[in-house]
């Protein structure tokens, strides 16, 4: 919204915001200040370079779960918004309910299940348990409800497009900004996830960075902290224009 006039309230708002931004930046400033004194050696040589194992495991875990979660939830959002599939309302209902149950709440029940199917202490078990991202499906549903009018889909049908054809020719080309925002939220959740890897990967040699970080208390945590911050910040910068345009636009119209 563009303000009608600039007045002293605007200045007051700006000063308040900058002050609050400074307060919330203190942890980051502390990280930067502390990182200058840190050296890589204790991290690299700890336990015969286990840091690199954690880095590799984190990459495999985050990369795979991110790919699965983004692909499945963007497609699901498209289907729920556009196609007349059986149980469509039930699927939307289940998405909304599960969106309000954090994955951490499911950690112990998931652990029991994963243990019973013998995937405990494996990256595959963690990837499968982390790949469901209902918030992304909900965002995708709102997005496609807003950008794909029924008339356009009707024209596609007249042209002989199947459900998958509509997705391929209309859904996917429109999905760029949606994918950037879903990727951001999914990535941050996976990259910083703690409880699920803590429960599902007990063996330290199979662990990931967000858990491994504990052993470096006082001798390099901040350096790893900054390293772990960089990908999330870059992804945010890539998706922030979509966020600024309004991530729930579809839901406010009509």
């Amino acid at each position: 919204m563009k303000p009608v006039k600039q007045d002293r309230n605007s200045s007051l708002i700006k000063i308040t915001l900058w002050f609050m931004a400074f307060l919330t930046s203190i942890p980051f400033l502390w990280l930067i200040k502390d990182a200058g004194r840190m050296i890589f050696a204790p991290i690299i040589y700890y336990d015969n370079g286990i840091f690199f194992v954690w880095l590799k495991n984190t990459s495999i875990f985050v990369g795979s779960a991110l790919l699965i979660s983004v692909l499945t939830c963007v497609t699901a959002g498209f289907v729920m918004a556009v196609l007349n599939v059986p149980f469509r309302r039930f699927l939307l209902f289940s998405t909304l309910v599960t969106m309000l149950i954090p994955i951490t709440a499911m950690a112990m029940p998931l652990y029991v299940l994963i243990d019973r199917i013998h995937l405990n202490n494996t990256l595959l078990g963690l990837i499968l348990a982390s790949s469901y991202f209902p918030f992304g499906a909900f965002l995708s549903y709102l997005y496609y409800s807003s950008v794909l009018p029924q008339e356009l889909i009707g024209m596609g049908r007249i042209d002989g497009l199947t459900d998958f054809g509509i997705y391929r020719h209309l859904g996917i080309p429109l999905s760029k900004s949606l994918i950037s925002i879903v990727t951001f939220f999914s990535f941050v959740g996976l990259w910083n996830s703690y409880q699920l890897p803590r429960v599902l990967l007990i063996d330290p040699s199979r662990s990931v960075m967000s858990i491994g970080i504990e052993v470096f208390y006082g001798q390099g945590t901040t350096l790893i902290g900054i390293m772990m911050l960089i990908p999330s910040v870059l992804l945010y910068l890539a998706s922030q224009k979509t966020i600024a345009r309004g991530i729930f636009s579809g839901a406010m119209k009509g």
Partner: protein
Amino acid sequence: MILPYVCFMFFCGIIPIAYGILEVRNPSWVNMDGGYETFLKVLQDFRVGPALINVFFIIIIFVPLMAITVLSISLLLDATELRGNALMRLLFLIPALIPTGVAVLFWVSVVGPDVVWDHSNIRWFIGSIAFSTGIGSWIVIQYGSLRSIPPEVLEAGIIDGCNRFQLAIRLKLPMISRYVAYMVILLIVSALQIFNEPNLLMFTNMTTDWSLSQIAFSYAFKAADFAGSSALSIMILIPNIILALLFVFFTDFIKKSKNS
């Protein structure tokens, strides 16, 4: 096309809960005879009462504080044309992107060991970490929801003589109310499930079994008692599922879907 998503929905949601309910029946350390009395037996655990108090403390003090802070900052960000708006949102977001392990270390060094090792402060301390790492993502989401309000609605408000404060209270907040409800519910259930912060502070020996999720964790990993762990986890899930159902029934997403 939607099948993979539905499979994950079942694998990560419905099947673990159903399996957990079946698991509770098995004989275990907490209930040698087995059966659904395990639900009652875990509630009699001496650690559950204090953990409940800790969790309710976070819900009563920090959840309202977080919700008010998030909404205030989001409304202020949306209320004025600000050079550096994107940078400022990034600054608000960064604490949420810092891994919890690093955030805990930061707070330990900020407040000093005396405060951390003092029993009376530990709830405030854990709440502060949850606050610091919890508000950033919500500011981004609520700012996104405010930007989704159609400009013509706000212009109508301005023509009707609303000032910025009235616009925020009378127009913007009611229009984003469902996302505010979504945030408040998730803040409550995250507090109910709090695990990371107390678990990372275990080196103080004061936060072992501090929260309900930690006790469920202890049952499984220290006592190898899956039945007790499942029973407690499912009981923590009940208020969560009730809140989620209330949210779905009192917002109009399903109705909109039917109309479309």
